[in-house]
């Protein structure tokens, strides 16, 4: 459309045939970051996209390790971090099924996935049913990211397991696991604690405690 007609209520005046002008809307160029991203990410190289997501995940990992700054995890939630942590943990924790030993006795790969994701969902549902005002995915995101200390404990245990076992090494593993468990619970309480009214806070925190206790038990029991 090259020209528009504009009906103006003007008797007898000469109406210009073309009405042109410039529309300048302030704040359209820079402030709406999300709008810009949708346009630009098609053109950028894949490496930039991946690095941006990885950086976001890295920032969130950092804020879990030093849980002071709440905004990055809660406002811009994503589920990449939990997926990475869960896959890594499931790969290490799965029991082997040799013919000789029939079954190592550990969980299967899929069972770890089920425990982590369904567990996070159930804890989130519980928190919402108790009346908390946090969104579903924000809560799943926080619970998933706070698995990082337990994964670090798992790596530490795996390293300790490379030596021949003795009681002191078992105590070391126990200390590592307990540290990871305490850290994970503390971090998730920092993020999720404010979303509950104060007379129900313990009711909402207990399932989180149970969730990380179960995963820490899987970590400490893994021993081959």
């Amino acid at each position, binding site marked *: 459309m090259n020209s528009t007609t504009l009906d103006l209520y003007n008797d007898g005046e000469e109406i210009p045939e073309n009405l042109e002008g410039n*529309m300048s809307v302030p704040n359209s160029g820079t402030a709406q970051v999300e709008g810009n991203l949708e346009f630009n990410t098609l053109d950028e190289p894949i490496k930039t996209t991946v690095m941006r997501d990885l950086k976001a995940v890295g920032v969130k990992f950092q804020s879990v390790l030093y849980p002071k700054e709440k905004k990055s995890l809660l406002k811009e939630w994503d589920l990449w971090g939990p997926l990475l942590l869960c896959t890594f943990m499931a790969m290490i924790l799965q029991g082997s099924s040799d013919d000789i030993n*029939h079954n190592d006795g550990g969980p299967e790969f899929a069972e770890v996935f089920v425990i982590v994701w369904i567990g996070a969902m159930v804890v989130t549902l519980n928190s919402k049913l108790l*009346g908390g*005002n946090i969104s579903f995915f924000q809560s799943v995101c926080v619970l998933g990211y706070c698995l990082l200390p337990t994964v670090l404990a798992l790596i530490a245990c795996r390293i300790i397991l490379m030596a021949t076992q003795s009681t002191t090494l078992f105590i070391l593993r126990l200390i590592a696991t307990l540290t990871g468990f305490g850290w994970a619970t503390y971090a998730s309480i920092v993020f999720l604690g404010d979303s509950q009214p104060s007379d129900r806070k313990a009711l909402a925190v207990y*399932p989180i405690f149970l969730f990380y206790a179960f995963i820490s*038990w899987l970590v400490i*029991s893994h021993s081959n």
Partner: protein
Amino acid sequence: MANNDNSFGAPFEFQDFIHTTPQTNVAELDVVTSVKEKSAGSSNAFEDAGPAGGETGKDSPETAGGSFWTFDYYKKFFDVNTKQVSDRIVYSMVPRSGQNYLETYIRPKADLYGPFWISVTLVFTIAVSRNMVSYLQFVDDKDHHWKYQFHTVSYAATAIFLYAWLLPLIVWACMWWQGGQSRLSVLDILCIYGYSLAIFIPTSILWIIQIGWVQWTLLLVAVGLSGTVLLSSIWPAAQDASRTIAVPLAVVVLGLHVVMAACFMIFFFNATSSDFSPTSPPLSTTVHEAISSTAASKI
């Protein structure tokens, strides 16, 4: 919309113009935040109504909470605070004479938070304790490399959820079938059964001690305390429903309670009924190994 119109003689103040377009953005933000505030406000209102009086706070009970398929319907089952839950747990283990547990602590607001999380905790403690027991058994045995059994979790979960969720429904159905309108609702029965399992959490941890008489004493104490509370809660309603089945129902309820606890003790914690010495080969692990070896040979 470039504005060159100057017919009023006063310079058009672009500041006004610029501030209008951000207002469209602000307007959008207002829509979003007002939605957020509305939901926060409604949940705040819900919280305010919660401790004060639950579902009779704002709406009539039929409309409060929506239909069966909405999320809000289930919110009223979780309308408890920490003190109420801890009271319910403590008094499910401590029978007080002259006080009906059901009337004092559960009614009028039965909840599902307690039963669900007590069952889950019990599954977890049974699994952990069971693995501890089997570890302690084989720690001296150099030939047999100990492997932990993760699948205890599934067995324990099945057993507990059958006992704590299916059985109350059956009991309720019996009472309803016999007596028409039962005084106990489904929620009440689920609540009582759920909280009666609470005493087994410390008991299952103590059952790690592999001394026969200690285990049996723990069983008797746990079943005695929780069974008394359970029975005293169900008895008035059972009598109301029908005198003919009240006594058999009470016997069955108590009997199943004992059987459930004893089964846990024997299958998970290696208690044997014939031999009380701690060094005898446990019955259940040999059974377990027989089953798993036949299963492996069939595969």
